Every structure is written in structure tokens, then in C-alpha cells.
């Protein structure tokens, strides 16, 4: 067996408190889960070496192997969904994976707006806390589009982030 390149892992220092590690699959390569696993393990090694306590794994949506690889080394899972029937459907599938793992789980509602109660109903039934609601807001979307950290532009988000604990 000969090792073959499937993609690239890159590390960036955002500031003295924040490191970003990204795995990028080469175009034409088929299986993402191998790279997800390697990126995750690199992040864990780097964090340990630098004495960093908090890691956030940003995984692709879905419930397939790649999502599972991101999840299995996590202490807790945050499911980010949107208040529509599609959001509910996809989240309930992802929740099946989390439930089977017995890891603590919480929900964040993104692009929140009144008029749909499906996410709350699900959260009640499955006893999963909704820990944050990010409003449907074009200003936030504009700021995100430029690559800004939303919490810098909207201080209210900082309060939400600081209060996350479950």
C-alpha cells in the first residue's frame, strides 16, 4: 500500500487566543471522512501541545461518516438548525446520531424568526435545551459575508456565547 495525497490540512493563527485548523479535500477525491478524521486528530494534538482547553469542531451538515468522525472525539454536541420544516427534519436525523452516542447535546436556532414552533416542540419532547437564538437579520448576514466574526459586530451575541453552558 502506497500513501496517496487526498487533500491538505492548514493551520492559521487568528490571534494569540484563537487557532484555526482546516482540512481541504482535493477536487476529484471522493471520501471526505478520512480527511475529517486526520484534521480532527491534528487539532487535538495541537491543542494538547499548546495547553488549549477549548476546541470547536465545525462539521458538515448530515449524519454520514464524516459527521460521525467529527462527533466521536467531542465531549458535547451543538446542533445548529433553522426554524423551518427542513431545519427540523435535518436536525432530527442528526439528533439520532447524537442520542445514540449519549453525549450532552444542545440546540442553537439560527436565522430565528417568529411563526414556526417545530424546533421548540422537538426540543421539549427530546428534552434538549435551546441555548441560543441568533436572529434572522440582514445586518448579521452582511457582516458574515465579509468574513467578520459576528460576535464582534453584535455585542448581544457575546452575551449569548458567554452564557453557553450545558
Amino acid at each position, binding site marked *: 500500500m502506497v500513501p496517496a495525497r487526498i487533500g491538505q490540512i492548514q493551520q492559521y493563527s487568528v490571534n494569540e487566543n484563537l487557532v484555526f485548523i482546516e482540512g481541504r479535500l482535493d477536487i476529484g477525491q471522493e*471520501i471526505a471522512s478520512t480527511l475529517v478524521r486526520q484534521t480532527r486528530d491534528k487539532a487535538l494534538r495541537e491543542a494538547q501541545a499548546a495547553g488549549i482547553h477549548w476546541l470547536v469542531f465545525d462539521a458538515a451538515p448530515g449524519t454520514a461518516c*464524516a459527521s460521525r468522525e467529527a462527533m466521536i472525539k467531542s465531549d458535547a454536541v451543538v446542533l445548529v438548525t433553522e426554524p423551518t*420544516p427542513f431545519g427540523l427534519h435535518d436536525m432530527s436525523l442528526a439528533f439520532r446520531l447524537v442520542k445514540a452516542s449519549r453525549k450532552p447535546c444542545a440546540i442553537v436556532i439560527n436565522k430565528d424568526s417568529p411563526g414556526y414552533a417545530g424546533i421548540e416542540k422537538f426540543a421539549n419532547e427530546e428534552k434538549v435545551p435551546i441555548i441560543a437564538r441568533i436572529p434572522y437579520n440582514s445586518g448579521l448576514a452582511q457582516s458574515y459575508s465579509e468574513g467578520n466574526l459576528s460576535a464582534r459586530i453584535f455585542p448581544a451575541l457575546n452575551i449569548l456565547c458567554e452564557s453557553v453552558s450545558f
Partner: protein
Amino acid sequence: MVERKSGDIFTGQSRFDSAIVYAELSIGAENSGKLSTQVRRLADEIAEEKDAEVIIIDGPPGVSCPAIAAATGVNYILFVSEPTLSGVSDLERAMEMARKLKIPSGVLVNRADINEVLSIQIKEIAIQAGSDFWGAIPLSSDFVRAVRNGKTVLEETDDERITSVLTQTWCSILERFQKWQ
């Protein structure tokens, strides 16, 4: 070697009498594209039976196996992009995948008004790559309302910026199809 079930395939009928085929991958299963390929095969069979002119495949974002399985062998790929830094990067990667598969493509910008500069950049990327550029759709809560009501956005909006782009895109691509027959 042990056989393992990787998912379930469903068929149904939409309100508009078109057939729908979709699948649910088993939790944690490897998303190798095999299930997508089965869905496509079944869709081909149903299209033959019903003498349907067009099969629309709603593909996943990304460039790995599930996206390749959705895109291989199609006549045309319509990319729906968004004018954000990550959206532009994702579009470029997806267009590279389409080029490698030698499939013609076109681009729509969704939520275009959240960033005019990047919307223009996306148009330039499309044109320089020899792809069609079908236009820009504004951010609108009409889409959210439509999804929540189980309706298509054309049934829920009277915003001409949305209806004209969607209708023109569809009609133009359909015209191309008829030329390919």
C-alpha cells in the same frame, strides 16, 4: 465481506404530479455515493415509464462523493451560490469539480443583496469560467414563509425580482435541453 444496509429509498408524488425519489442514509453510514447512485437509477426508470422530459437532481453542497454521485453524467449543473467569502470559495471548488467532469454549468446568486461586491465577483467568476450567469435573487422572507407553508416560493411571492429570475432561468435551461434532444 458482510453486506450492510446503508439506507432507505422512498418514492412519492408531488402536488404537481411529478414523481419524487429520495433516500435516507442510515445513521453514521459511509456516504460513498452508492445510495445516491441507486436513487438516480430508480429516477431514470420512473422517468422512462412516465415519459418525463426532465430529471432535476437536488445535489448536496461540497465536492466529495455525494456531490460527485449527484453530478456525474448530467447534462447541466446549476450552482446556487451566496455572496459571502465562504460562498465564493465553495463555488470555485464546485465549478472546478464540474470542469473536471466536463459538464456545462450556470450560476445563480442567492441572497445577493447581502453583499453587492461579492455578487458581482461571482458573476465575473462564472463568465470567466465560460459558465452561464442566470442572475441574482434578493434576501427575502418570502422563501422562509414558502418553506414553512409547504409551498414553492413562486406561490408565495409577488416580488418580481424573484419571480423573473427563477422563471427565466428555468425556461432558458429547458430550451437548451430541447436543443440537446
